[in-house]
């Protein structure tokens, strides 16, 4: 496989990983706050805490990995996106910082504060909204080069219907992913009331997720017809995604095989996300950076690939250990240990 394909596959996979683990986290923040508002916090919050406490730092590293990796493999992206995105990037960063630190303060500092909970819930919606505009921007039209100067057209982004459909999709997806996972997790913990409550959330958000996906396609067809056409050519991928969606909703509806239903949710997003990414190529930033033009020199590229393989050898066993201890350990989930 050529270097640029290895690079982008690795990065895209990690971004996918981030989307799944971070969605669970972001959505959980919102559900915590929502159930506090509706006086149901005693039902779901314990489950949420139990899962999130050991893993929040790991979630953050997924994002760092993606950012450092893309600068490493495709240094031009640092130049274009970096120059253009000072303000939106800075604001997303501030939100992310507030969220991470306050989560740790509330959780390890051992103090339940409504204000912390509020911040945690709200940033859980705003951060994905802000981060998702990164993908919108990559479609082109919002970063332009005038001579040597790189400019960001924030106003155009704000007025673009496509951009809003992406934001909408991001928000409903995290709620849907998160609720589906937590339904499974609560069920595994034998916590019937929590599982029932989360099941309702999950079913509730499944409809808007599909609606938003359709809207995004519609938006894309107007904003970047070339990309839309490429996506259309591999429409089977998106059909697979939809079938996974049906399977997931059916299983949750029937309260059966909740583990499989979450796997179906992951597959649904995997198909959609990789299909989207594949049809996006070769552009990393339309029309300025392509996979080939942006690639780092091959010595560095292969060094990074080797480092990546060595890193995985270390990481995979550690991640398995983490999951074995906290995710698939029924005793831990049930709070017996």
């Amino acid at each position, binding site marked *: 496989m050529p270097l640029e394909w290895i690079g982008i596959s690795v990065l895209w996979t990690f971004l996918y990983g981030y989307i799944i683990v971070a969605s669970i986290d972001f959505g959980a923040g919102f559900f915590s706050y929502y159930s506090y508002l509706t006086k149901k916090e005693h039902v779901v919050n314990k489950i949420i805490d139990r899962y999130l*406490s050991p893993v929040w730092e790991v979630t953050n590293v997924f994002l760092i990995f993606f950012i450092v990796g893309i*600068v490493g493999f495709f*240094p031009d992206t*640092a130049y274009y996106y970096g120059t253009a995105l000072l303000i939106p*990037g800075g604001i997303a960063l501030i939100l992310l910082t507030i969220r991470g630190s306050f989560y740790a303060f509330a959780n390890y*500092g051992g103090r339940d504060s409504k204000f912390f909970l509020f911040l945690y819930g709200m940033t859980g919606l705003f951060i994905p909204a802000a981060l998702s505009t990164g993908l919108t921007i990559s479609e082109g039209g919002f970063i332009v080069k005038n001579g040597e100067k790189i400019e960001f057209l924030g106003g155009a982004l704000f007025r673009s219907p496509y951009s809003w459909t992406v934001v909408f999709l991001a928000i409903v997806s995290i709620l849907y992913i998160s609720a589906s996972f937590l339904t499974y997790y609560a069920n595994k913990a034998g916590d019937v009331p929590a599982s029932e409550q989360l099941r309702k959330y999950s079913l509730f958000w499944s409809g808007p997720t599909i609606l938003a996906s359709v809207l995004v396609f519609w938006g894309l067809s107007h904003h970047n017809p070339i990309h839309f056409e490429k996506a259309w050519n591999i429409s089977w991928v998106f059909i697979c995604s939809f079938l996974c969606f049906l399977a997931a909703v059916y299983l949750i509806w029937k309260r059966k095989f909740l583990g499989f239903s979450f796997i179906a949710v992951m597959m649904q997003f995997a198909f959609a996300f990789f299909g989207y990414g594949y049809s996006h190529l070769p552009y990393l930033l339309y029309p300025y950076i392509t996979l080939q033009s942006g690639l*780092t020199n091959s*010595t560095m590229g292969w060094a990074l690939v080797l480092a990546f393989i060595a890193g995985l050898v270390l990481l995979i066993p550690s991640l398995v250990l983490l999951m074995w201890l906290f995710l698939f350990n029924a005793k831990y989930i049930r709070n017996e240990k």
Partner: protein
Amino acid sequence: MDSVFWSRMLTEETLAFHIIWAAIGVGVPIFISLAEFIGIQKKDVHYTMMAKRWTRGFVITVAVGVVTGTCIGVLLSLLWPTFMQLVGNVISLPLFLETFAFFFEAIFLGIYLYTWDRFKNPYWHWLTSIPVIIGSTLSAVFITTVNSFMNTPAGFKLDAAGKVIDIDPIGAMLNPATPSKVGHVVSSSYLISGLLLAGLAAFFILRGRQHIYYKKALKLTMVTTFILSITTILMGDISAKFLAEHQPAKLAAAEWHFETKEGAPLVLFGSLDPKTNEVKYAIEIPKALSILATNNPNGTVIGLDSIPKNLWPPLYIHYLFDTKVSIGFYLLFITAVFLILWMWKKGNPFHPIVLCGVVIAAPLSFIAMELGWVFAEAGRLPWIITGIMKVGEAATTAANVKLMYFLFSGLYLLLAIVACIVLYRLFKGKPAEAELKAFEGGIS
């Protein structure tokens, strides 16, 4: 021009804030692990309790370290896009490796925190602290190699058009500055973490806590920090010799050494007339600079006269360097005093004066670290990558950096305040004595 200035301010502020928490993140796991190990070996619950209490505070500081680190990671691309474009081509390997170190640390920190009572054999739990140590120390090592690269770039060539060619990622990582810098940074991070814990223990004894727990904590940290002050000073000396060879401008500016000559004297303290560059009120030690820089009383030390004036680093770094070195020797002194009084049968290492000295050492050591960084970074000016790229050419051309500066300043202020309040609340009303009693009561 404006965005260059504000980019500098924002970078400096973010780094200066991050390194406080990062250094704690690098060093404290060593002490936690040590205490837990001694606790298991000696079957002494005091040490186990020490490890638990330190861990509880540690997670709060780690959280701030993680989020501010994320800020730097992203801000580097936002504020220095041209720099990152070049860095991406030459030195992204250690940055990439660093993320694996973070991963490793993050995973095992989660495991360490939530498995205190899950293993029958306590050594298993202790073992999970080792990857945390490895992960955090390696992240310091990797990021320091990047900083070393900025000081002494290596592992690539520039062609006529200014494009990088002949790239050697390992060579870039193991550039001439790497050994001395990594050694000094890691050793000083351990040192200041130990002093932080020692300072807290000494503070509580001074406040009248009688329990043997605090004395044990103080003894443990004092022995280790004594050794670490020696290694830090040694590594500092190696760093100075490195500067003499590879970054003579930085050393000359730090020592106010204007003329290249043999047998150069060392200028201690003093003040500089900004117009005439005349040094006043300084202590001059004949030949000492030559000894420091070259191990030879008659060695030649390059002075500022050999460097074009527009490439001089700022001369105020002399004050930073002297203050830092003074603090370094103070740290060695106070830890040595404690140990001597402890060894000496009639001595009382817990004398209030000694304890006060230990308490002061904690903030002083953090000041020394900040001064060290400002010295090292400002001494690189006007370059962002020595000899390759100047700070002014590297900064973003975007407007509104000033706004970002103020937003982030507010953020760091908020973080600092809330973190302190949370830490205070965490331990207020929960002295070790009470916890130990509950703990021992539970066992018997």
